[in-house]
């Protein structure tokens, strides 16, 4: 029995989805990625600060290091996921024309997935030295 259960009406449990039609999934994933990014952002800022002014070989070797490559990929996935979830809410709040809302939600999702794939692919290329 969670302490938050008192905020939920029984009909919520009966239907299981709530007014947004997807329950609390968005809320929970937004927070999980937020907690991940709290730590990963410190790490990435630290990495970028240590590489400020570094030459190409040094920067590439740093990203190629297995620990850095894995943490960078984790950061990129959490970041683009969190960005999509946040922009989704902004669009839901401000874009009320149905076709424009759907088009912008699609555009944001495609852009975030594409940027995530491209950046992860770049890190993998660097890490594998190809």
């Amino acid at each position: 029995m969670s302490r938050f259960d008192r905020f939920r009406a029984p009909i919520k449990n009966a239907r299981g989805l709530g007014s947004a039609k997807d329950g609390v999934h968005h809320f929970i994933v937004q927070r999980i990625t937020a907690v991940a990014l709290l730590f990963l952002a410190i790490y990435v800022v630290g990495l970028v600060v240590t590489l400020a002014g570094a030459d190409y070989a040094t920067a590439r070797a740093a990203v190629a290091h297995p620990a850095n490559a894995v943490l960078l990929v984790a950061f990129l996935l959490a970041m683009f996921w969190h960005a999509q979830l946040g922009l989704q809410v902004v669009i839901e709040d401000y874009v009320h024309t149905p076709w424009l809302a759907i088009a912008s939600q699609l555009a944001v999702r495609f852009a975030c997935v594409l940027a995530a794939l491209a950046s992860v692919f770049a890190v993998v290329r660097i890490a594998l030295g190809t």
Partner: protein
Amino acid sequence: MSQPVRPLSPHLQVYRWQIQMVTSILHRGTGIILAVGSVLIAAALACLAAGPEAWACVTGLAGSWFGLLVLFGWTWALAYHWINGIRHLLQDAGLGYSIAQFVRNGWITVIGSLVITGLVWGVVISRGGFA
């Protein structure tokens, strides 16, 4: 598809500005900025993978006065979203909701974000980066 013109509830223009709304608006604003910035991160990594010439473009842009201005603003946006994000997570846990606490921790995030930005750039400059 035509949109019916419905009356809207009063919005920002009817409120006196106060820290509670500033922290909320800044969180959304910095979130949008960081989302745009995330595409720059993807582009920079693609350049790093592509080779020294492409990477020289990135460092050239980053080291220009405009690039440094963007990086400085970007640092603050990240610092603010980061520290106010912690505040939001604590609020999700039901903490810090009395008016006095809410105003105080709002100011802590605003001032804290400036302090973090100063610390990050202090380290960058002391290490001689972007010199």
